[in-house]
């Protein structure tokens, strides 16, 4: 076994296929520094939990400190060869229009035109937060795939590929590590936004995930089995079937009525309603105040709306977006069918970024004919309601520091930037932006489904590495405020997945308990400011 001198910085692309130990061993010292109160790593940075011996025994874990995909170790050389062969077959399929019409053009252009200028590296929060670990450079992963493509799939590739793109060996290590490495990217596409050529390393990470899922059937359990498959089987990735979801919403209506002093009743299956509202069903279980606040606002504004109790019609989640085109399309169709059945005028998405993107713009080139029902974000709807004067609002009820997180899928990838800001400017007098923000935002660190992954020690990686840049931004946004828990501070995150990440990271670093940093959605802030509602809506749910 040949070891690499300094794993973090000296790693070369060719090292990826070497029969070495782990390619990267991050320590707390390597990580990008954070501002106060997390500036002293010795005090504030929890130790890395090591991977258990049984995990190392069972799964391929030669990439870095953590593990997500859980690829069992092959039992024989023959099995390894079988997987290598399947990998190459899958790679070939990525370049055919029949199997990959969905992304052939952007994918091929990225594979063939990168100038290796590394502009993308400066834009990637994972690379930066890791202390510039070579393994996490946006181009590192792409470069491995590119070299394999040019060497093994292009005619004359064994000579020209090497000359034009550099060398790589394709063996079992390469395959297993590449599969795992495709899950060290948030698919936030900040790198693609910065690329002067227009290449997209985020897309490549997704295409690698997709190759493994669609050809070898390898995906994380959280995304596939417990996610998309469970959603298609039961109706929701949370495991709630239609009866359970209706029961839960009844409880939420009751609580909402108590807390607000209004009589809140969520409408179900209203034929011909103007709007079918689809929440990420995770909200109903983890953040019931969010669907409650939607109900309060829509009811108070006199909107014609409904929820659907059709399987999938009450859960906007679509994890296929992160790893698999077939699963993505299956879920999209079910969502459209639920809306068609009710004959609604349009579908509106609650506060869930990836659901916005999956069903609004991605599904836009999947749904045709009578399934192509208008689909919109809830942000402009909420803006229009707030600006219309239909709700009586008292901004002084939100007199605490508020900052806004921009979910990548909704903002950078859909251009929905201003509506939520217009609302905040009207109802949150102490609103301040993060730097950078809007379409230039950083991912929360839970993007691409990471927020629902906590197996082995992945939480450490998700908090310390992928969530680090966002944490820095948040602490900087609240700089100058009393940092004790006495002063209530609010991160407004209009996205379920991002909220999952904030919940975990605030707890990991003790920032709610010690520093009074809380998080929640946009609708909660609106209801908190409504004068027809008893004061203290947000605090009441937190208690």
């Amino acid at each position, binding site marked *: 076994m040949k070891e690499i001198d300094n794993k973090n910085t000296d790693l070369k692309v060719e090292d990826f296929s070497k029969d070495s130990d782990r390619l990267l061993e991050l320590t707390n010292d390597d990580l990008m520094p954070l501002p106060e109160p997390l500036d002293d790593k010795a005090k504030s940075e929890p130790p890395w939990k090591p991977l258990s011996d049984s995990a190392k025994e069972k799964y391929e874990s030669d990439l870095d400190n953590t593990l997500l995909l859980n690829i069992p170790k092959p039992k024989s050389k023959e099995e390894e060869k079988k997987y290598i062969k399947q990998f190459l077959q899958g790679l070939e399929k990525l370049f055919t229009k029949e199997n990959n019409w969905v992304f052939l053009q952007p994918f091929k252009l990225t594979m063939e035109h990168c100038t290796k200028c590394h502009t993308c590296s400066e834009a990637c929060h994972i690379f930066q937060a890791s202390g510039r670990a070579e393994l996490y450079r946006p181009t590192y992963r792409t470069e491995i795939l590119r070299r394999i493509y040019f060497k093994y799939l292009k005619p004359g590739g064994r000579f020209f590929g090497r000359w034009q793109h550099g060398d790589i060996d394709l063996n079992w290590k390469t395959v297993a590590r590449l599969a795992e490495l495709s899950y060290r990217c948030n698919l936030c596409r900040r790198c693609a936004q910065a690329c002067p050529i227009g290449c997209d390393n985020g897309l490549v990470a997704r295409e690698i995930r997709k190759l493994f899922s669609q050809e070898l059937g390898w995906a994380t359990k959280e995304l596939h089995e417990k996610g998309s498959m469970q959603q298609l089987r039961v109706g929701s990735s949370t495991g709630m079937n239609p009866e359970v979801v209706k029961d839960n919403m009844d409880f939420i209506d009751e609580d909402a009525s108590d807390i607000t002093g209004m009589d809140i009743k969520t409408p179900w299956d209203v034929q011909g309603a103007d709007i079918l509202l689809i929440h990420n069903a995770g909200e109903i279980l983890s953040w019931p105040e969010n669907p409650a606040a939607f109900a309060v606002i829509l009811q108070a504004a006199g909107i014609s709306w409904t929820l659907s109790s059709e399987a999938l019609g009450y859960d906007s989640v679509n994890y296929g977006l992160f790893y698999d085109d077939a699963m993505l399309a299956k879920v999209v169709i079910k969502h459209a069918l639920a809306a068609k059945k009710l004959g609604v005028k349009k579908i509106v998405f609650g506060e869930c970024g990836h659901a916005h993107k999956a069903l609004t713009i991605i599904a836009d080139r999947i749904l045709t004919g009578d399934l192509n029902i208008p689909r919109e974000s809830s942000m402009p709807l909420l803006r229009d309601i707030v600006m219309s004067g239909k709700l009586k609002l008292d901004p002084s009820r939100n007199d605490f520091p508020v900052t806004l997180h921009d979910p990548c899928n909704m903002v950078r990838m*859909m251009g929905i930037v*201003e509506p939520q800001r217009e609302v905040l400017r009207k109802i949150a007098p102490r609103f301040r932006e993060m730097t950078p923000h809007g379409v230039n935002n950083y991912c929360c660190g839970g993007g691409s489904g990471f927020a629902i992954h906590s197996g082995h020690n992945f939480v450490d990686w998700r908090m310390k590495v992928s969530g680090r840049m966002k944490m820095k931004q948040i602490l900087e946004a609240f700089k100058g405020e009393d940092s004790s828990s006495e002063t209530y501070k609010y991160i407004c995150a209009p996205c379920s997945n991002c909220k999952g990440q904030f919940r975990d990271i605030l707890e990991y670093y003790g920032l709610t308990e010690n520093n009074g940093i809380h998080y929640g959605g946009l609708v909660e802030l609106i209801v908190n400011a409504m004068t027809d509602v008893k004061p203290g809506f947000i605090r009441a749910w937190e208690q």
Partner: protein
Amino acid sequence: MIEPLHVLTLSCIVIFITAVLVRFIRTARMPVHLRWEIYPVAHDKGFEHGGSYMENQDWRNRPQEHSQLNKLKEFLTEFLFLKALFHHNRKLWWSSFPFHFGLYIIAAFAGLLVITALSSVFNVKHGGVFLSYLVQFTGIAGAILCLFGSAGLFFRRLFDKGLKKYSPISAYFNLLLFVGISVLMLTVGFSSSGFGPMSAYIVSFLTWSAHPEMPGPSKALLILSLLVLAYIPLTHMSHFFMKWFTWDKIRWDDEPNLPGSKLEKRIQAALAYPVSWSAPHIKGDGKKSWVDVATEEIEK
């Protein structure tokens, strides 16, 4: 008698045009892809803050306000001044910008040489002196910028640890080609005969007649430039025109699929493609279409 240099010139021009066309047409004929835009989208009304038409309710029923002018402006600033690199990687921009801008000036220089040759062929008397000054100026200026840029990029790739690891042999070779062209251009430009022999050669090529003897550096410059011209579109350097796809057809492609539109028909055609992905949840047999895959129930 057929001049070997003429044959080389013609071949390189034909290879260049064919390679550009093949790449361009192949890419343009790829099937429609899923929407994959990144904001800001240049033609959108909300460009300044990165906003889209989806910032409004019922956008399907509103007239779309597109600014083709802004799109052109953004594309030109990107193409000419490498705006993205300027904003996101200033260190590299200091070499990359002069390199690219130098090449554009060299392209203008080549165009001016052809115009000079044409005026000689057609015996146009006016503006000859001005034109020759312009040729001289663009030739020297383009070469200086290109030399500065290509040498800068070469040394960056050689000494920057991060860049070096990702730079294959061809990256250095390509940059040295441009260093070579620039040095030759400067040698020719500052020689006593200047770019005159090049212009005379173009006249001979256009009239397919014997060309006068050329000084060594001019001949070397001509041959090297022609070979590089043919070589560029065969490599990733074709990004100079393929960028139009990555920007206009991907990053800025926010065209909605409206019922009954042409786009809808293209999508329907793509959905009918046969699938052969092998994973158990797809079991593509090369006959099932994407519609079949998307609509078949999973095994419960």
